[in-house]
């Protein structure tokens, strides 16, 4: 920017470096830059001196060597001959998995508790504030350990299911709760199952279509169709019919006790469950507060105005309060999602193979490449959080209320 009228050029004096607004900020920035460079140089110099003294170097080729260890919960093909990079990938996917599951469940808990906390039922409201206070004020690590302990120390071991008079039995003969996790039946896709699945997908589209149609109908003729039970019917009836028409092509692979463990079915490991549940219920308490604040942020006048127009309470909620409350709720909600992702790194306390446990744990231990592993680890989390904040910014800009 061209600045003020100044004395003619050439009369530069050294004191102007401090006294002249034009140079002053340059001076300060130069000093800051210098300090920054000096301190980085100092740290880097120490680093290289230390590494050289220890005869080490910074290299990432260890990522290509076989990891040598096994991982119990993997979403992609992996065995002990796979590389460290692949182990890291397994970890990343596991982090994303537990973060995703926890976000969903935390939202459910949070919204429920937040809404119930505003309920005019005194007892329920008090119970919910008890939940919120208890969970907010105790460290999440302790919650993870407590829930993991419940999983491992209270649930029966698989061997309890053995014998003629087993101490424990499977729920409905389908699901087994053990201290190693929960075993649920896995679907077996027979011929024709594709048709059933396709039907189901078409039904989902159908439900969306029906709801659109109902809205349009309301708008064009003023007829209000019910949406609740018809949606359910559209969702399930055709699929169930098709299931029987195709001769029940989808079977269940029911977990069965064999050898040391249950076999067959899908195993959801105890660490995953503990982490999932603990993160959800802990973060749920925070989300509940956000939800409550969001709903309370919609002024009482809005509800009154809507009721005065004759809208029933349910519609007031749906048409007036929620759309406004969501704008308040969603930004903190997204940062809670970010917190969940970051807190999922506590997986290390329960032996869940997330990125912190694989790359930042076993790989680091096995290769001794501490600096490299920790840097990669931070890079990963940084990427995730930058992505999430980018999403948040986009959202915030999209819903900003139009003002004068």
């Amino acid at each position, binding site marked *: 920017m061209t600045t003020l009228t100044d004395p003619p050029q050439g009369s530069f004096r050294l004191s102007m470096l401090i006294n002249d607004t034009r140079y002053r900020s340059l001076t300060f920035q130069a000093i800051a830059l210098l300090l920054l460079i000096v301190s980085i140089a100092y740290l880097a110099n120490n680093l290289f001196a230390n590494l050289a003294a220890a005869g080490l170097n910074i290299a990432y080729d260890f990522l290509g060597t076989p990891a040598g260890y096994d991982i119990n919960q993997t979403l992609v093909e992996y065995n002990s001959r796979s590389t460290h990079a692949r182990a890291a990938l397994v970890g990343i996917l596991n982090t994303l998995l537990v973060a995703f599951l926890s976000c969903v469940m935390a939202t459910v808990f949070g919204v429920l508790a937040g809404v119930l906390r505003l309920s005019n039922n005194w007892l329920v409201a008090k119970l919910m504030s008890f939940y919120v206070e208890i969970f907010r004020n105790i460290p999440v690590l302790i919650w993870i350990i407590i829930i993991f302990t419940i999983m491992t120390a209270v649930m029966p071991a698989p061997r309890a299911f053995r014998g003629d008079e087993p101490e424990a039995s499977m729920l409905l003969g389908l699901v087994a709760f053990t201290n190693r996790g929960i075993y649920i039946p896995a679907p077996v896709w027979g011929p024709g199952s594709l048709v059933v699945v396709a039907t189901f997908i078409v039904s989902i589209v159908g439900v969306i279509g029906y709801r659109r149609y109902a809205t349009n109908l*309301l*708008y*064009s*003729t*003023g*007829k*209000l169709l019910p949406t609740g039970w018809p949606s359910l019917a559209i969702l399930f009836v055709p699929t169930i019919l098709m299931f029987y028409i195709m001769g029940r092509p989808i079977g269940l692979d029911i977990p069965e006790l064999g050898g040391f463990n249950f076999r067959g079915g899908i195993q959801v490991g105890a660490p995953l469950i503990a982490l999932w549940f603990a993160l959800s219920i802990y973060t749920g308490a925070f989300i509940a507060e956000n939800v409550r604040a969001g709903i309370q942020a919609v*002024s009482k*006048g*809005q509800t*009154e*105005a*809507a*009721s*005065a*127009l*004759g*809208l*029933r309470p349910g*519609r007031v909620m749906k*048409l*007036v309060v929620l*759309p*406004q409350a969501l*704008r308040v709720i969603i930004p903190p909600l997204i940062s809670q999602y970010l917190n969940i992702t970051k807190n999922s790194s506590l997986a290390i306390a329960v032996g869940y193979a997330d990125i912190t446990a694989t790359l930042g744990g076993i790989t680091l231990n096995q290769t001794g490449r501490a600096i490299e592993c920790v840097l990669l680890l931070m890079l990963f989390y940084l990427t995730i959080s930058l992505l999430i904040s980018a999403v948040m910014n986009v959202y915030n800009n999209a819903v900003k*209320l*139009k*003002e*004068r």
Partner: protein
Amino acid sequence: MAEAATQMKVSDEIAITITKMNKWYGSFHVLRDIDLVVNRGERIVICGPSGSGKSTLIRCINALEEHQQGSIEVDGTLLSSDLKNIDKIRSEVGMCFQHFNLFPHLTILENCTLAPIWVRKTPKKEAEETAMHFLEKVKIPDQANKYPGQLSGGQQQRVAIARSLCMRPRIMLFDEPTSALDPEMIKEVLDTMIELAEEGMTMLCVTHEMGFARQVANRVIFMDAGQIVEQNEPEAFFNNPQSPRTQLFLSQILGH
């Protein structure tokens, strides 16, 4: 100006009957033995010191507050805890608030069509036509696609009036509709209300705009400490108040 008021027709039909109505907030007795009959087409202005229960009274009429004793009958429907009756009364009675309470996430047009579509089940197109009609009436049809936040206070209050009118109410309640507005804007809102009055709408209006009261009211009611202390035709009320409390109040308000 009193002529203007008398020119407007008042029918003999009764619109609202309030009998021996009492209301408490906790143990605080806000409304005491209120008796009031409003005829169709009447325009009533309610005034009184702050905290005297004016807002509470008109909020009881469309069940935004519940009363504990006595009865309120609107257009022949008794206000009880029966949801049906409440719905019926609310669709007969429009209300305007001090702070407009427009829905900030909806455009002006959507604000106006929301209730007709969802409560009256009017087709959207028809609702929009009605809305445009009333927006024209309050003289802001060109703002229909803006958001409330983009309008001035006076414009917002006029939208709020239009929004109520879209439900085609037979009675309108106003709770200090101009007290949150700048002086220039007060006039435009009062003009709209006067126009409404001239069309014969039954109106109950809490306001301290004495000019408005003189011009359109059939009756002015003065409340204090939860009671109706005095009521009279505007000329008589202002020129010759009977109760000492009314006199005190008027001296304060007009001396200002």
